[in-house]
C-alpha cells in the first residue's frame, strides 16, 4: 500500500524510506536535522514538539511519520523568510524577542508554532483565544503574560503592517546609559528561529547512545548482577558496572555519598540508583540492552519520610545514620519570650516533594579527544563542579576534563547535581567514541534531586499589640537518598523560618534526614519556599487571633535597617521590605478597599472571592562563610567588539544579558558590540555555582570590574601614548576621546597591540565575607525582599480555587535588566502558584508514582492570573549598580498569599500543599452540616 513517505517540509519536498516505529518528531530532528522542534516529554503533554501539518498544529512526538505522507509540514525553521541574503523574522518571532517572551527558549518553537496557527485562523485574537490555543503548550520559565503580549503585538503588526509595538516595561529608577533599561537577550534570535542548539541537538561522528539501568527498588542490597545477555546483544559496545569505575566511586556536591554505580553487596538507596550503564549503536539498542540486565536484590524496609527516618529502630541508610544534619538557630531567651507573650499559637504544616520539570530533560555527550582529554557537552548549573566530579570518578587530574556548557532548557536548581555526565564519560573512555546520554522524561522524573518535602511545626508568641516576641520552629526535611545540597537547603529553610521579621527570641531546630525517596537538593527558593508557607500562614492566624489587619501585623514587625536577623546579623542597608508591603497594600486596595473580607458573586453565590497577603526574604549568595567568588574575562577584539566570559550558567534567567549590559555600560558601547561566552571550563573562568540568586551579583560584579580594569588599562595606555592626563580621556558612545582625538575601539585594539599590551582582563571578584551559622555576624552579604497579594475565587460547592490576580513587589536593589526581570517575576509567581495549587511529586512506599509528565501538573497559561509586578529598588552598596538577586524571592510568597486568600474567602486553613479542593469542599460541607 505504501513504501515511501513523500512530504513537504518548509517548502522543500522530501521522499524518504519509512522507518519502523518512527514518529514525525524523530524524522524531523534526526533525518532532516531540523532540531528546532524540541522534545520535552515525548508524551504529548508539553507542546514543545508542535509543528503544523496541513496548517493545523499537532504534537509531532505522537504523530507516526508515515501519516505525514502527502502532507505539508511547517516547523519553526520555516517561519523566517530569506530576503536578499538576510533573514527576516516573522513578526511573531520578532515580538517574542522584543517583548522578552524568550527565556530558556526550549518551549519557544512550540509556543510560536501554536501561535502561528492561531493567527492564520484568527488574525485578531483576544486574550481568551490565545489562552485557549496555548492551553497545552507549557513554559516552565512561565512568562505566560509576556507570551500573550508578544502574540497580541505580532497580531497587531501583521494586521496593520506597523512595526511591533514595544513592551511596556519601566526602566530602573537608577538608570545608567545601558543598565537599567530594556534590552533584548543576546541569544533571543537563535531561540526563536530554531537555530539554538541544546545538547540533544548535537550529533558527533561515530556517536554511541547510552542508557543507565536503574535499580527500580527503593531500598535493597544488590546481590547479583548478570550483564551477559546485554553484552551479547548485537550493537552493544560496552556494558559497565561498579567494578569498572576507574577512580573514586562516589560523587556529590558537598558530601561524596552518591554512588556513581551501585556495586554488588552495596546498598541501593532509591529507585533511581544506577546499577549498570550501557553504550550501543542506537538509543533503541541501548534501552533493549539495559532491560536485559538481570539483577537480584535483597530488599530492605523502606524509609518513606523524614519523621520515620529519625525514629528509633529504623534501618540506617548511610554510615553516619539517617541524620544528614541537625541545624540549629538560636537567638534570645525562649523562656522569657514565651513568658512575655500575650498570645501563643502553634500549628504544623506539610509540604510535598516537587519537581523542577524544566522543559529540557538532562542530556550529556562525552567526546574523547586524541590527546587523552574528555570533552563533555552538557547544560549544567555548575560546570566547574561537573569537571571536579567527573575527574574524581575517572581518577584523573581535573585538567583532563573539559565541560563545554550548552544552552539549557531551564534548571531552577535541578541541574546542579551531575546526572549523566560521569556515566557518559566512563562509556566514552572505554569505547573511545563519543557517547550521548539523554534522559527521557521518565528517567528525569525518577532520578534527579527534587524539592525537599517538609514537616514544619511553628509556635509563635506575640504581645497584644501585635509585636512578635518569640518564634519556635521544628522542621523535618526529606533529603532523600543522598545529600546533594540538602544540608544547605534545609539550613536556609531554618534560618528563614521565622519570616522577614524582627523577633527578639527565636529557636529553630531542623532535622535534615535521609530517606529512600529520590534525593532532594536545590530548587528555586532553596528551602525558604517551605518555611515561608508555614510562617506566613501563622502570621495570618496570629492576625486573626489579635484582631489586627494582616498587613499591619507584618508592617509593624518587618525587618528594617538596624534590625538583627535570627542568625544575629545586623542589617545595615538595602532593606526594602516596608516599601514592598506598602506598595502591594496600596495596589491591592485599589481593587478592593476591604481586601480580606469575602465577596460573594451575586450571579453565582457559590463563588467567593478574597485577597491574601504574604511577605518573604531570601539571601543573595552562598553565605554561611563559604567563599563566594566569580571570575570573568573581558577582551577587546580587532573589530572593536568585546567578549565577556565566565563559567556562570545561563539557564534562561538572563545572566548573559546582565553580563552584556554591564560590559556595554562600562565600555560605553552598544550592547550588540558585546558578545557573551559562558560555561566552558577551558575558555571561561570559574563563575561558581548558579544558585542562591547570586549570579547577577557576583558574575555581574566580576564582569563590571573586569571591564573597568580594561577601561583603566586603555586609559593608562592612551594617556601614555598621547601624553595626556587620564582625566582627559573619556569613553562615550563607542568612542574613546583622548583630548580631542577620537578613537574607535578597533583603533584602540591596534594601539594596544602595537604597544605590546593585551586588551584582555581576567578579574576574580570575591563577595564580602560571611560567617557560618551559629557564630553571629553577617551570615549573608545581601537579602532580597518580596511581598505578594493574591486574589482568589473559591467555589464553595466543589472547593475549586482560581487565582485571579497576583500583585508582586520585589526589592531587587536595582533592576539591571528590566525585561529579564519581568520574566523572572512572572515565572516566579507561576512557579509559586504551581507549588501551591498543582504540583506534587507522588511517591508510594519509595516507588515513584509521578513517573511521567502527565502525572505532574505544571501550571499552563489557563491558570495564569493577572500578574502586577512592582519593582522596589533599595540598592546594596557592593552589588553591581546596587543590584541583588531576584531569581528566588519572586517565587516564595506566592503560596502563602494564595492559601491566606483561601482562608479569607471561605475560612478553610490550608496547612498542606498542594491545595486539595476536595478537602476544602469537605470542610465546607461538614461545617454546613454542623449548623
Amino acid at each position, binding site marked *: 500500500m505504501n513504501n515511501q513517505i513523500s512530504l513537504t517540509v518548509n517548502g522543500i519536498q522530501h521522499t524518504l524510506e519509512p522507518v519502523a516505529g518512527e514518529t514525525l518528531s524523530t524524522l524531523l530532528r534526526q533525518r532532516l536535522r531540523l532540531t528546532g522542534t524540541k522534545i520535552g516529554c515525548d508524551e504529548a503533554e508539553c*507542546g514543545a514538539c508542535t509543528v503544523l501539518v496541513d496548517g493545523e498544529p499537532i*504534537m509531532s512526538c*505522537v504523530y507516526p511519520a508515515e501519516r505525514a505522507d502527502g502532507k505539508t509540514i511547517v516547523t519553526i525553521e520555516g517561519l523566517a523568510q530569506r530576503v536578499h541574503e538576510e533573514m527576516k523574522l516573522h513578526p511573531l518571532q520578532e515580538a517574542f524577542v522584543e517583548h522578552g517572551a524568550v527565556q530558556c527558549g526550549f518551549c519557544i518553537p512550540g509556543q510560536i508554532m501554536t501561535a502561528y496557527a492561531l493567527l492564520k485562523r484568527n488574525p485578531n485574537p483576544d486574550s481568551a483565544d490565545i489562552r485557549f490555543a496555548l492551553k497545552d503548550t507549557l513554559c516552565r520559565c512561565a512568562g505566560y503574560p509576556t507570551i500573550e503580549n508578544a502574540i497580541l503585538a505580532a497580531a497587531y503588526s501583521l494586521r496593520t503592517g506597523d512595526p511591533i509595538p514595544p513592551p511596556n516595561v519601566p526602566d530602573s529608577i537608577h538608570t545608567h546609559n545601558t543598565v537599567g533599561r530594556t534590552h533584548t537577550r543576546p541569544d533571543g534570535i537563535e531561540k526563536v528561529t530554531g537555530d539554538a542548539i541544546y545538547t540533544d541537538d548535537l550529533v558527533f561522528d561515530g556517536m554511541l547512545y547510552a542508557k543507565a539501568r536503574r535499580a527500580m527498588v527503593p531500598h535493597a542490597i544488590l546481590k547479583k548482577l548478570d550483564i551477559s545477555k546485554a553484552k551479547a546483544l548485537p550493537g552493544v559496545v560496552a556494558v559497565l558496572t561498579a567494578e569498572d569505575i576507574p577512580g573514586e566511586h562516589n560523587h556529590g556536591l558537598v558530601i561524596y555519598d552518591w554512588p556513581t554505580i551501585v556495586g554488588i553487596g552495596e546498598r541501593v538507596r532509591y529507585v533511581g540508583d544506577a546499577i549498570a550503564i550501557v553504550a550501543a549503536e542506537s538509543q533503541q539498542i541501548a534501552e533493549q540492552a539495559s532491560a536485559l540486565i538481570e539483577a537480584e536484590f535483597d530488599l530492605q524496609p523502606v524509609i518513606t519520610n523524614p519523621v520515620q527516618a529519625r525514629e528509633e529502630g529504623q534501618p540506617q541508610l548511610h554510615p553516619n545514620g539517617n541524620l544528614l544534619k541537625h541545624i540549629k538557630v538560636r537567638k534570645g531567651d525562649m523562656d522569657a519570650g514565651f513568658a512575655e507573650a500575650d498570645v501563643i499559637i502553634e500549628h504544623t504544616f506539610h509540604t510535598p516533594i516537587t519537581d523542577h520539570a524544566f522543559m529540557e530533560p538532562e542530556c550529556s555527550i562525552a567526546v574523547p579527544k586524541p590527546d587523552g582529554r574528555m570533552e563533555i557537552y552538557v547544560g549544567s548549573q555548575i560546570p566547574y563542579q561537573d569537571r571536579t566530579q567527573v575527574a574524581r570518578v575517572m581518577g584523573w587530574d581535573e585538567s583532563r576534563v573539559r565541560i563545554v556548557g550548552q544552552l539549557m532548557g531551564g534548571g531552577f536548581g535541578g541541574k546542579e547535581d551531575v546526572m549523566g555526565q560521569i556515566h557518559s564519560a566512563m562509556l566514552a573512555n572505554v569505547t573511545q567514541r563519543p557517547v550521548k546520554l539523554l534522559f527521557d522524561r521518565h528517567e528525569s522524573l525518577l532520578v534527579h534531586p527534587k524539592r525537599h518535602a517538609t514537616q514544619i511545626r511553628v509556635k509563635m508568641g506575640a504581645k497584644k499589640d501585635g509585636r512578635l516576641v518569640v518564634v519556635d520552629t521544628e522542621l523535618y526535611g526529606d533529603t532523600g537518598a543522598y545529600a546533594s545540597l540538602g544540608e544547605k537547603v534545609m539550613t536556609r529553610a531554618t534560618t528563614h523560618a521565622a519570616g522577614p521579621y524582627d523577633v527578639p527570641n527565636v529557636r529553630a531546630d531542623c532535622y535534615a534526614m535521609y530517606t529512600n525517596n529520590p534525593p532532594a537538593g536545590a530548587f528555586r527558593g532553596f528551602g525558604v519556599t517551605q518555611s515561608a508557607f508555614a510562617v506566613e500562614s501563622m502570621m495570618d492566624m496570629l492576625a486573626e487571633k489579635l484582631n489586627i489587619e494582616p498587613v499591619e501585623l507584618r508592617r509593624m514587625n518587618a525587618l528594617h535597617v538596624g534590625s538583627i536577623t535570627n542568625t544575629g546579623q545586623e542589617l545595615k542597608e538595602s532593606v526594602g521590605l516596608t516599601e514592598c508591603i506598602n506598595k502591594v497594600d496600596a495596589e491591592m486596595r485599589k481593587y478592593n478597599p476591604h481586601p480580606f473580607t469575602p465577596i460573594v458573586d451575586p450571579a453565582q453565590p457559590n463563588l467567593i472571592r478574597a485577597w491574601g497577603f504574604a511577605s518573604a526574604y531570601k539571601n543573595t549568595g552562598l553565605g554561611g562563610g563559604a567563599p563566594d567568588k566569580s571570575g570573568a574575562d573581558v577582551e577587546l577584539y580587532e573589530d572593536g567588539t568585546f567578549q565577556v566570559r565566565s563559567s556562570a550558567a545561563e539557564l534562561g534567567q538572563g545572566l548573559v544579558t546582565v553580563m552584556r549590559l554591564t560590559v556595554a555600560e562600562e565600555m560605553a558601547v552598544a550592547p550588540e558590540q558585546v558578545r557573551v561566552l559562558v560555561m566552558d571550563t577551558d575558555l571561561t573562568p570559574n563563575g561558581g555555582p548558579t544558585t542562591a540568586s547570586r549570579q547577577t551579583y557576583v558574575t555581574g560584579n566580576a564582569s563590571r570590574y573586569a571591564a573597568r580594569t580594561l577601561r583603566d588599562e586603555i586609559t593608562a595606555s592612551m594617556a601614555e601614548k598621547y601624553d595626556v592626563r587620564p582625566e582627559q580621556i573619556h569613553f562615550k558612545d563607542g568612542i574613546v576621546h583622548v583630548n580631542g582625538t577620537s578613537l574607535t575601539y578597533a583603533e584602540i585594539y591596534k594601539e594596544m597591540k602595537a604597544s605590546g599590551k593585551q586588551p584582555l582582563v581576567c578579574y576574580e571578584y570575591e563577595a564580602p565575607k560571611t560567617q557560618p551559622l551559629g557564630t553571629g555576624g553577617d551570615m549573608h552579604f545581601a537579602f532580597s525582599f518580596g511581598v505578594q497579594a493574591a486574589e482568589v475565587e473559591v467555589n464553595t460547592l466543589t472547593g475549586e480555587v482560581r487565582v485571579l490576580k497576583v500583585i508582586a513587589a520585589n526589592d531587587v536593589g536595582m533592576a539591571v535588566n528590566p525585561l529579564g526581570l519581568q520574566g523572572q517575576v512572572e515565572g516566579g509567581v507561576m512557579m509559586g502558584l504551581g507549588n501551591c495549587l498543582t504540583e506534587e511529586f507522588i511517591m508510594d512506599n519509595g516507588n515513584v508514582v509521578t513517573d511521567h509528565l502527565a502525572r505532574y*501538573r505544571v501550571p499552563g497559561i489557563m491558570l495564569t492570573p493577572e500578574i502586577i509586578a512592582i519593582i522596589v529598588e533599595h540598592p546594596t552598596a557592593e552589588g553591581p549598580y546596587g543590584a541583588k538577586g531576584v531569581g528566588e524571592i519572586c517565587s516564595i510568597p506566592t503560596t502563602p498569599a494564595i492559601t491566606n486568600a483561601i482562608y479569607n474567602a471561605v475560612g478553610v486553613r490550608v496547612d498542606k500543599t498542594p491545595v486539595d479542593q*476536595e478537602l476544602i469542599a*469537605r470542610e465546607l460541607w461538614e461545617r454546613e452540616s454542623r449548623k
Partner: protein
Amino acid sequence: MNLWQEYKRPASVTEAIQALTTAPGTVMPIAGGTDLLLDLKQGRHAPIHTLIDLTFVPEMTVLESRGDELYIGAAVPVNRVALDPLTGHHAQALVEACNLIAGPQVRNTATLGGNVAHALPAADGTIALTALEAQAEIASPTGMRRMPFTSLFLGPGKSAINKSTEIIVGFYLPLTRHQQASCFKRIMRPQGVALPILNCAVWLERDGDIVKDIRIAVGPGSSIPFRATEAESALRGQSINEKNFASALEVLLGQAKFRTSARRASADYRKHIVGGLFKDVLDTAWTRTA
C-alpha cells in the same frame, strides 16, 4: 524493539478490514493514536507488528448529515467535531466535550473512534455521545452493522469491539429538532492525573414548561458509560423546579455507583458535587431549548 514494524494506510473500509485480518503477527487499528502511541512508548502496551492507520479512509473522515441523522466518521479529529457548524447545531454537548479533551494540538489528531475504542467509561466524548444516544457503525469481515453506543463498552478499558478484526467506522446521532438541546460540563482537579473528577451531559426536549424527553449521562457513574435512567424518568413529563430536581438527584445518587479513585476523588466528594454539576448542565440545556 520498534514500537511497530509495519504501518499500513488503507484507502477504504474494505481495505482496512483486509489489512487487519491478513496482517502477520499482532495488529491494531490506529486513528489519532494519541493514546495508543503513549501506551506503546511507556510500555503499557507491548509493541505491535502492524498498525493500520484509518485516517486515510474517506468514509471515516467525513462529518455530514445523512437523512435525519448526523454522521461523524470515527477518524475525524475531535477539533473538527468541535468546530463544525453541523455539530455546533446538532450536538452541543459533544462540541463542549470535544473542546475540553486535552489541548488543541492533541485535538487535531485525537479522534472519537479512538476515544471510544479505548473504552474508558467516563471519557468526555463518551459521556456526551451517551447522552446524545449515538449509534456506532462497525465494520467486520462479515460486513457492517450498527450498535447502540453504550453496548460498545464491556467494562473499564474493555471494548466490545474485537480490535484485530473489527473497526468502528463512525457514529450516527439523531438530528436536533425544534425545542431540543444538549449540554456537557465537567469538574477537574488541577493536581495529580489528567482525568476529570466528574462529568455530565444532558440532552432534553422541551414542551412549554415541561420536560418532554431527557437523557442524562454522568461519568464515572458506572463501569460502563452511565445513563441516569431513573433520574430521566423522574423528570420526564415534569417541569424543572427545585422539588423535581431534588427528587431526580436523589434517584441519580441511588442509581449511580460513584467510587473512590486514588489521588483523584473520593466517592463521597463525587456524591457531594454531582448535584451542582447536574443542575448546572440541566439548566444550561433547558435554557438552550428556549
